[in-house]
């Protein structure tokens, strides 16, 4: 099933930042959003993930199929790495955390409290969470922040494996991920024309 975004406008603080966005992400494909700071990538991803309502247009094929990872990765510093992961595995009803630990080279850190990880290790844990959700569509906001080159490669490998299994991915990033198969999608042309929210327009 495709993730399809049709004529989507997204707003932050009631003001549209992107409009007329159209794309489709089919199983096995990845789309990389690009655009300068403040262009609205985070807002777009949150809308696609269903965390905020679209300003206009529609998102189909997202319902209950999305695993979302943002700047804040929901890691509890007082739980160990395995406890963090298996919590999400249980919430999403999938059992296995071992492959995720292996894929992000976290085995050595299994029993470390998440609060004692370095920035990059924490991020790896956040990404490992994606694998235990069992969801087909990964929606990622700057996934490789703080990662060193080796970890970026691990991440690219994980995305590739996910795509090979028929999953798909939609991510925003400023740096090169080394994912050759991903199509870039520049959001800059979709900057919304100055427009107010419908609520505000009632007051004009």
């Amino acid at each position, binding site marked *: 099933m495709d993730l399809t975004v049709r004529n989507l406008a997204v707003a932050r*603080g*009631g*003001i549209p930042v992107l409009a007329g966005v159209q794309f489709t992400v089919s199983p096995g494909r990845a789309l990389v959003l690009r655009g300068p700071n403040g262009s609205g990538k985070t807002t777009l991803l949150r809308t696609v993930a269903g965390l905020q309502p679209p300003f206009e247009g529609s998102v189909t094929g997202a319902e209950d199929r999305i695993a979302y990872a943002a700047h804040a990765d929901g890691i509890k510093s007082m739980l160990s790495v395995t406890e963090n992961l298996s919590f999400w595995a249980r919430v999403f009803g999938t059992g296995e955390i071992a492959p995720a630990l292996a894929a992000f080279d976290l085995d050595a850190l299994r029993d470390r409290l998440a609060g004692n990880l370095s920035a990059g290790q924490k991020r790896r844990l956040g990404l490992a969470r994606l694998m235990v959700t069992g969801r087909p569509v990964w929606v990622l906001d700057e996934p490789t922040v703080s990662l060193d080159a080796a970890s970026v490669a691990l991440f690219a490998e994980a995305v590739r494996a996910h795509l090979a299994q028929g999953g798909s991915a939609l991510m925003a990033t400023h740096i090169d991920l080394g994912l050759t198969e991903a199509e870039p999608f520049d959001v800059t042309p979709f900057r919304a024309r*100055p*427009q*107010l929210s419908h*609520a*505000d*327009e*009632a*007051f*004009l």
Partner: protein
Amino acid sequence: MSFWEYANPVKFIRTTDRLLPWLSVTAVLCLAVGLIWGFFFTPDDFRQGSTVKIIYLHVPSALMAINAWLMMLVASIIWIVRRHHVSALAARAAAPVGAMMTVIALATGAIWGQPMWGTWWVWDPRLTSFLILFLFYLGYIALWSAIEDDDTAADLTSILCLVGSVFALLSRYAVLFWNQGLHQGASLSLDKEENVHDVFYFPLLVSIAGFVLLFIALVFLRTQTEIRARRARALQARERLA
């Protein structure tokens, strides 16, 4: 033409702009007549002496304190069901007015209590319920002012208003159970045998009318202000975007 047209902010401002002068003049007139009549030209009560004159402030403000909350409740429901921005803003505008009415009722009641019951305050059910009502007003206003996004604030405060009304009602019964008090029953109801004497009754009615009109005028004015503030924000936002 339906009633809901007034839910359009522009229409609302235009209509209320026309009404406001009349409303405020009659409000002031009624208040002046009611209070002056009550203060200068009514006899003393044989039991309460001259303190009975406090009634012209106390009862109207107490009534309005409750009615303001009811109005906010209705406005909140309208917002939840039909999402008319004016009703949300009207609820917001009414809250401080209602809170002020509550304070007046509490203050005049407390002052009245001193000569009548020999104390500023007793934990009588009526008084206590009012204090709780005041707390609800405070919470409602605080929540409004704590949230930045207008629509989110409207949504949250209307749910708070709904839940709060249920709990306010519950508190009323709880308080009645907890303590049967000293306070006067509702003697304004027309069917009751024991009614306030006519000399007190008519100025009281005028004064009540004055408070009602004052409340409406203030709510109109404040709603206008909220609408304008919102419109100013919208224009500024559009400007920034341009």
